[in-house]
């Protein structure tokens, strides 16, 4: 048991990543409103970003603005990936929201189960 607690306290940010991703996954599955599904997708993505940024962190490290001879730095590479991924995430969200607007204007509802019925009846 102490081993489990030890694991969780030393890998606390990774545990947070798992929980946040699970909540995002829950929103994608369980909420019926399309906008909330998109919010859940965003939350899942931010969980992944947290994972990358945590893997780059170093105790006693400084932000990766390098100067000669200064102390240890955190790793810049996962941060580069996350920077790109955040912008790609907002692009994805914007297209998803445009699709939502279009779906609403065509079918008059934002609920996924109602949409399934309506589209299934056509």
């Amino acid at each position, binding site marked *: 048991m102490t081993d489990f607690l030890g694991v969780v306290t030393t890998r606390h940010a990774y545990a947070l990543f798992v929980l946040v991703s699970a909540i995002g996954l829950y929103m994608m599955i369980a909420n*019926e*409103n399309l906008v909330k599904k998109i919010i859940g997708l965003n939350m899942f993505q931010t969980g992944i970003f947290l994972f990358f940024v945590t893997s780059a962190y170093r105790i006693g490290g400084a*932000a990766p*603005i390098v100067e000669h001879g200064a102390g240890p730095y955190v790793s810049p590479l996962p941060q580069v990936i996350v*920077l790109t991924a*955040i*912008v790609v995430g*907002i*692009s994805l969200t*914007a297209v998803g*929201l*445009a699709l939502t*607007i*279009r779906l*609403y*204007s*065509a*079918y*008059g*509802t*934002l*609920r996924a*189960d*109602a*949409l399934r*019925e*309506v*589209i299934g*009846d*056509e």
Partner: protein
Amino acid sequence: MSSDRLNGDTRDSPTDSRVARQRPLYSESQVIMTTVKAVIPFVLTYGLFITFHGTSSPGGGFQGGALIASVVLMIAFAFGIESTRAWLSNTLVVVLATLGVAIFAGIALVPMLLGENFLDYTAYYPLLGDTLGLKKYEFVKYGMEAVEIGGIAFIVAGVLMGLFFALAAGMTPTSETNTVGDGIGDNANADTDDTGEVSDATDAGVSDDTIDDSDTDDATDAGVSDDTIDDSDTDDATDAGATDDATDGGDRQ
């Protein structure tokens, strides 16, 4: 204008479901206008600073582009989305994004034409070293700055602005039969929309219940379809079926 609009808040209490549905996107609020007028110059300066100093301090093209786009978003909140778009002119937004891609692609692909690798900034040295007076290794720094500022910041700012205006404009129905409810966001300017249909214009000041941003059939079924969008209601499926039959939504593109 009805007093509801002067609240400066388009999100009202959810008790009246029909009123909560369709609201104008812009309402004149003195607080927002004054704050925005005071704050915008500083935000724009800060956004430009972050873009230009991307190589020496935290920042760069992504953050700076997002900040510059947010300046335009704030102006749109304070003074109306349609008027901001008219002021900015669609051309500027489209040109900003396209120019960004062109600059980035140009700077990146020309070295390949010169025989070097992709995005090899030092390949410019034989060409431009004398005219610009730069040493070989300095080309990397200035090439990076050019790509960050002229490429990434332009693209991100242009596309975020464009997405904002596109989402605010909403869906344009392409069918001829669908005349009402073009989806133009600002109902105060409904008389300028290209479909020119009258329902929005005549209803603009009258009653929020019948203002419909997106869909003619929703307007006619304003009473019925609200049941279908109520999350707490479990027989939405049957109501949605009824709405669909009444509105013929499936036939429209």
